[in-house]
């Protein structure tokens, strides 16, 4: 009975661990040799990354004519991938910052890995606008710096420029947040290792010794960074949605976009968090830290955000019908029943229908099914961006300019390459840095054991 009344008072970490156990368990994968499973994953990811490097190299050397874009569909695969990866990042910030502010202490087991996921996802995202420039060596032109052309400044009225500032701020703040969280754990790593690992961890631990006066400031700094990251994550995806909603294309020009994009971003990111956590707990033997309860809570968040996304899809259609605007109405009819209708139905099936299984507690306990649903969410959210971008463009106002779009092998290779980059970085992170925030997990060990008030 008390369990039902005080669900937060159940232990968060299984196996009755002490603080010393946490240090040992979390540091063990860093100190031993990598497992064959790790090598298999790493080599597969590195191979994909290599493919991506070849494709991007060819594209940069030849020009973006190697992509399937045409005069009508000027944005397709690359921007889809950009929005997809930025969205993935947002769940990391949700877990590290928003759940911290909401005092959800179960987050301690997953926040470090989720923050790392954010960083790597934003790196993958930033790649796509960069290569879409065609001449990426001029990428610094997007920043306003005094130059010999006037100075000719950037256009601060363009959402694409807002994106530059939003994404760079988001990356820097996420990096700082992640690093500040790592400092105490790096000190732990320094104090239990020797040789080169000790020197490296010691360099980045900045001489941390755990003094209470430092912890006291650290706690406030962490709270402040969480408070800054929370509105930041909302602003970043709102600004990404402005790239579309400030234009006059039917299907893009709607006021629902900022909240719709933010909900979708968090939904897709939670899908990726689930995918990664289920892999990490198995391959790195972290079952006591990432427990079925963590999976259960994440599933409920996936379900809640799936309903928000479903509501947004319905609202869009209702708005299109109710507006009486023939172009708007056609854009949505074309999405669901046009030549690319199948992408729309993949989106609805993966994002709205499949997560409904998570209403059942039995399904949430079956980790295999949860893993499959998390993969479907990733697929569905990629298709959502594809649907929004390509189906809105390919049939616009003038039927004479209608066109179709299909990706070239170079574009598919670049997408696979971005997955390669993401998983290579993530596996390196799991190998060389504590994947679980030891300093935070130790603080919740007494949770629900009843020996402290």
């Amino acid at each position: 009975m008390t369990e039902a009344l005080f669900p937060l008072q159940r232990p968060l970490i299984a196996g009755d661990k002490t603080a010393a156990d946490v240090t040992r368990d979390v540091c063990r994968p860093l100190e031993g040799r990598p497992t064959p499973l790790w090598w298999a994953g790493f080599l597969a990811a590195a191979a994909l990354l290599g493919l991506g490097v070849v494709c991007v190299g060819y594209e940069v050397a030849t020009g973006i004519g190697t992509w399937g874009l045409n005069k009508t569909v000027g944005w397709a695969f690359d921007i889809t991938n950009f929005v997809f990866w930025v969205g993935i990042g947002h769940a990391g910030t949700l877990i590290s910052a928003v759940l911290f502010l909401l005092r959800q202490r179960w987050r301690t087991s997953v926040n470090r890995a989720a923050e790392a996921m954010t960083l790597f996802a934003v790196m993958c995202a930033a790649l796509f606008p960069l290569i879409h420039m065609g001449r990426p060596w001029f990428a610094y032109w997007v920043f306003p710096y005094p130059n010999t052309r006037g100075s000719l400044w950037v256009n601060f009225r363009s959402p694409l420029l807002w994106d530059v500032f939003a994404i760079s701020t988001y990356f820097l703040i996420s990096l700082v947040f992640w690093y500040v969280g790592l400092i105490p754990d790096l000190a732990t790593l320094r104090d239990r290792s020797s040789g080169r690992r000790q020197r490296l961890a010691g360099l980045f631990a900045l001489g941390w010794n755990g003094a209470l006066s430092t912890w006291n400031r650290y706690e406030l700094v962490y709270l402040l960074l969480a408070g800054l990251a929370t509105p930041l994550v909302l602003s970043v995806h709102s600004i990404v949605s402005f790239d579309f909603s400030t234009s006059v294309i039917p299907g893009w020009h709607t006021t629902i976009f900022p909240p719709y994009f933010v909900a979708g971003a968090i939904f897709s990111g939670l899908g990726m968090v689930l995918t990664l956590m289920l892999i990490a707990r198995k391959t790195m033997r972290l079952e006591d830290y990432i427990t079925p309860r963590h999976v259960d809570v994440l599933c409920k968040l996936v379900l809640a955000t799936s309903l928000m996304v479903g509501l947004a899809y319905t609202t869009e259609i209702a708005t299109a019908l109710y507006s009486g605007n023939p172009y708007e109405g056609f854009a949505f009819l074309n999405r669901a029943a046009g030549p690319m209708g199948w992408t729309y139905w993949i989106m609805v099936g993966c994002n709205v229908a499949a997560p409904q299984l998570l209403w059942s507690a039995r399904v949430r306990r079956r980790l295999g099914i949860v893993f499959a649903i998390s993969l479907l969410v990733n697929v569905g959210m990629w298709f959502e961006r594809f649907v929004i971008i390509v189906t809105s463009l390919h049939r616009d106002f003038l039927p004479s300019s209608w066109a179709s779009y299909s990706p070239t092998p170079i574009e598919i290779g670049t997408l696979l390459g971005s997955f390669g980059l993401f998983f290579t970085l993530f596996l390196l992170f799991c190998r060389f840095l504590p994947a679980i925030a030891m300093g935070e997990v130790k603080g919740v060990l007494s949770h629900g054991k009843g020996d402290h008030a």
Partner: protein
Amino acid sequence: MSRRLLYASFVGEAEVLAAVAALRAGGHSIDEIYAPYALHGLDRAAGLRRSRLGWVCAAAGFLGAGGMAWFQSWTSATSWPLNVGGKPFFSWPAFVPVTFEGGVLAAGLATVAAFLLRSRLYPGRAPSPLPAGATDDRFVVAVVARDATFDAQALARLCLEHGAVETVERVERGEP
């Protein structure tokens, strides 16, 4: 000038809280407490005040936002005004997103920089030589001798009574 210190290590949360309260009630000066994680309530037990870094965050945030707002207006309306689709040169609503990002970036970076400076954390700083386990599972309370009445053995006994697992007496040369 050298300092005499007694380091007492604790493993349990309740033990260290009680010991710190007892040491403070007995009028001993606690030099510093080293903790493997932020234990709720320990800062209050040790009588620490809330950090003032929040003011740095607020000041840097407003400066960053104000700076970006000014910079956008200056580049768009004064330095080289460009006619973009007939929009006014000082089209302030379009400047809101970047103003916000500038505020967040300045606030975040300045807060962390101020924290590292204030806590004297920098690459290459040698960590203080502490009894083993201070970054693993042990809370280490360092009591410093203020005058000749410092009785390390009596203090060690007091700490052991409160559940200390280890006590070490040390003389340190100079301020760290």
